[in-house]
């Protein structure tokens, strides 16, 4: 579960959305734009599927939490708490994607 959520989020935030050569090679403009376009299209697909995977994993996590039979002395988990949890992960996803974009542009 942790792997499906936390590690994916970490990986997502570190995605590099530009393909800048580190060697001293120089590029013509069209080559440069084309290089980015190809690279980003590929990375974008990965972002899309990972995002879906994490959202699914969070749903599963909530499912697991809700179906766990609690001791009768323990209070049931409120719907509010559940919503907080999923909102937290949704927000984390946004932060991860924002970080990736910001890092790549910088």
């Amino acid at each position, binding site marked *: 579960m942790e792997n499906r959520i936390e590690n994916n989020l970490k990986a997502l935030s570190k995605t590099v959305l*530009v393909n800048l050569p580190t060697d001293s090679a120089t590029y013509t403009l069209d080559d440069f734009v084309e290089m980015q376009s190809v690279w980003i299209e590929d990375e974008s697909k990965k972002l899309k599927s990972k995002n879906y995977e994490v959202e699914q994993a969070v749903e599963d996590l909530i499912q697991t939490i809700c179906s766990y039979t609690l001791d009768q002395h323990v209070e049931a988990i409120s719907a509010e708490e559940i919503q907080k949890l999923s909102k937290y992960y949704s927000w984390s996803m946004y932060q991860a994607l924002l970080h990736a974009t910001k890092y790549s542009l910088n």
Partner: protein
Amino acid sequence: MKERICGRRNLPKQVLKPFFEVDVRLDGSQSVLKPSLQEVQDAINKAASHVLKSTKKVQLWFQKDVPEEEKEPFYNWIAKDKEIVKVILLLTGSIQGTKNSVSKFLEGFSTYSWLWTKKPEDDLKRFRQTEPDLDDFEEKLKDFDLKNGQIEEIQSTHQIGALSLKTIGVKEALSNYLFQWKLVFSKDIHK
């Protein structure tokens, strides 16, 4: 991308590796860049826009019951983020900063503008009027060779910011002009 194109602000003296290669050419009456600075900037803008749009197909959560084509992507929010907007602005203005240095460099070639603004035949006529002897002719031809040497000594690449300016085109054009001038004068020597 910004660091690679504009350099890092906290390391102002760091030498940027050139990133784009542009040719310096003669275009009729002036030296120009090919591709132009605007074209370089357009390419940077296009690349930045590609990066930004990478989350356009990544959908926000809790939209499972929303029809596919109406789902809102993360892009809508990321594109509005203050820091993202700031970087985009810096990138879209990144080439502007090199404009002055580039103009100055290009103006340097105007020293040779007589090569195309004047006609060698007219100049020869004027030269003839001074009734030159053979030594004067030789002097004149030597001067052409000297100037050709100066042109050849122009560095073949000149770096300004992330741009590497290739001067081969302009150098060849200048040499060709000079060759024509020399030809007109040397043909006349033995008349």
